[in-house]
């Protein structure tokens, strides 16, 4: 890669953001047992994808936009959203980022460039292209980052949008976080490229755009791969498909469900469905958050004591988010009808 290494300060920033995502989501997960009933419906955690999220967003500039999926807690944290407002949203409270009307699957913070999250697989990909068309018309060198999972690459929305984005040379980067599982189905069971042993980034070839596969557990590798794609997009050369390979460390979704509710498992589906505990444990040994911390400590970029200090500061930050959200009132009943129409 031609991009330089990020500065030591920038690497510390990257680790800080990764740890903030991890700690925030641990508090989301703990809420199910510590405060049963406070989180309703379904949440989807990004544990295992933190390096990919932070590496991708490390190039974000004023005026850029990002759109993601229902697995959306990580991005706004990195872009500067207040974790208190995020947790309040996940708890359905009045002080939530979206006033309690969206919840975990639809976090949005327009002021910070986090434009919107569709909960329907693949549906947000054309939205990103639309925002990229807007950026192209405005012609200020801004880009749009479109985050989605491997499952979305079998949706028509993915293929239709990549075609148009390439044809129109839109300033968009398609970032596919490939965690190897579409809910409980392995990629090889549902993807012709995966079944043939090919990386999913080869799908880019059909649409005349670069397709690259990167280790999504390495924030520096993602920083460089997505950085090159963003440079290409900013300079008017059009989109890139980046396949970022990650392993999600929780089950697909988290709810408190009685036994027998389909598609909800207490542990990752590799264990609960396929009996492949070793696959999961190998992924856990490669957990990107402690691994990056180890690298920074080893390289004397972040002294161990400073790393400890950082962990406890972030733990406090997220404890405050939980306390704030628990104390935030429910939205007024009238507000249920407030936002259907402008």
């Amino acid at each position, binding site marked *: 890669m031609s991009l330089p290494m990020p500065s030591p300060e920038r690497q510390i920033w990257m680790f800080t953001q990764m740890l903030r995502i991890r700690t925030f989501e641990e508090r989301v997960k703990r809420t199910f047992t510590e405060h049963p009933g406070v989180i309703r419906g379904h949440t989807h955690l990004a544990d295992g994808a933190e390096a990919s999220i932070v590496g991708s967003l490390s190039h974000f500039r004023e005026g850029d936009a990002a759109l993601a999926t229902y697995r959306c807690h990580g991005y706004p944290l990195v872009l500067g959203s207040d974790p208190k407002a995020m947790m309040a949203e996940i708890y359905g409270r009045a002080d939530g980022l979206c006033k309690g009307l969206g919840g975990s699957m639809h976090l949005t913070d327009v002021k910070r460039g986090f434009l919107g999250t569709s909960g329907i697989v693949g549906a947000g990909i054309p939205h990103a292209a639309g925002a990229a068309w807007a950026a192209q018309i405005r012609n200020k060198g801004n880009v749009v980052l479109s985050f989605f999972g491997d499952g979305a690459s079998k949706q028509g929305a993915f293929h*239709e949008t990549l075609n148009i984005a390439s044809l129109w040379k839109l300033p968009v980067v398609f970032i596919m976080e490939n965690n190897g599982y579409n809910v409980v189905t392995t990629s090889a069971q549902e993807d012709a490229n995966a079944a043939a042993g090919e990386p999913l980034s080869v799908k880019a070839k059909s649409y005349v755009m670069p397709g690259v596969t990167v280790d999504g557990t390495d924030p520096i590798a993602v920083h460089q791969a997505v950085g090159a794609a963003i440079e290409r997009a900013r300079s008017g050369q059009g989109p890139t498909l980046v396949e970022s390979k990650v392993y999600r460390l929780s089950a697909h979704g988290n709810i408190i469900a009685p036994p027998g509710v389909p598609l909800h498992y207490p542990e990752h589906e590799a264990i609960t469905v396929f009996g492949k505990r070793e696959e999961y444990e190998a992924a856990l040994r490669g957990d990107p958050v402690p691994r990056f911390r180890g690298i920074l400590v080893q390289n004397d970029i972040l002294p161990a004591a400073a790393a400890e200090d950082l962990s406890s500061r972030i733990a406090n930050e997220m404890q405050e988010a939980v306390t704030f959200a628990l104390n935030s009132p429910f939205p007024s009943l009238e507000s249920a009808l407030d936002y259907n*129409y402008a």
Partner: protein
Amino acid sequence: MAQMPYIAAIDAGIHQEMRRDANVLYFGQNLATTENHAFVAAYGPNRVRVTPISETAEIGIAVGAAMAGFRPVVELYMAEFMLVAMDQVVNEAPRFRYMTGGQVEVPLVLKAGFGFTAGWAGQHTGSLTALFMGVPGLKVVVPATAADAKGLMATAIRDDNPVVYLHHYMLTLEPGEVPDDEYLVPFGKAEIRRAGGDVTIVATGWMVPRALTAAEQLAKEGIHAEVIDPRTVVPLDLETILRSVDKTGRVVLVDQAPRHASVSSIIAAEIAEHRFGVLKAPVVQVTAADTTIPYSEPLEAHVIPNEARIVAAVHKILK
């Protein structure tokens, strides 16, 4: 005022808004394929683009461009083509303002023709209006005259919500007087096309001229029908309809849709709930049969409402 066909009036509405607001975009299939295309020539290839046959991406791109501050108009040609991209129409465009607590607005227009009962058989003839009417967050407009075609398009483009603009294919070449100057028709304001005190007839789209012809025939018998065209079904001007029912006590609702997927059944329920005591006879619906539209001409004519059925319905409740 200029005389022009309905289809040209729609274009006039789009031109009016594209001239005044550089944020208005217009795109779709088989559109703007040469530099001589009127819209490309006037507004350039940045704002007017041809797309592949990719309804999901087209409408999805409109959603994203709208969230990013533009006002896209998607040329979809036929209402059925929205079915290909129903997620974007029903579960994306109208959801974002709500789910974000008002952080984003999604001002876009989905322009689609419907009801082409001229031998287009089963898949290009539907009257899908009520399908969109039940989606909170969407507005739904159904122009029946050339002037409304222009004015409702202009209002749709200025509206800050996603609007499904359903023009009726059987009215395509129907001429009408259209104001030359800036012209806007407000949403939620029904038009009384003909005044009368004996019976209220409510109709949209192509059923409006049919209802008016029926009313003329009834007038020869001394029966004075009031014909109301809601023009927009979301928002629906129930007030004008109920006021007319107060006067007449009798209602015939005409709708080209199958009975169980019609706007008329929704209006009938509102009238039943709010004017039960005023009604002198049951509300009668003249709708299409619950069937796929047949290709063969006499069968096609048989299953959709016509003037004779409207007249017969009025006779039935005036007995």
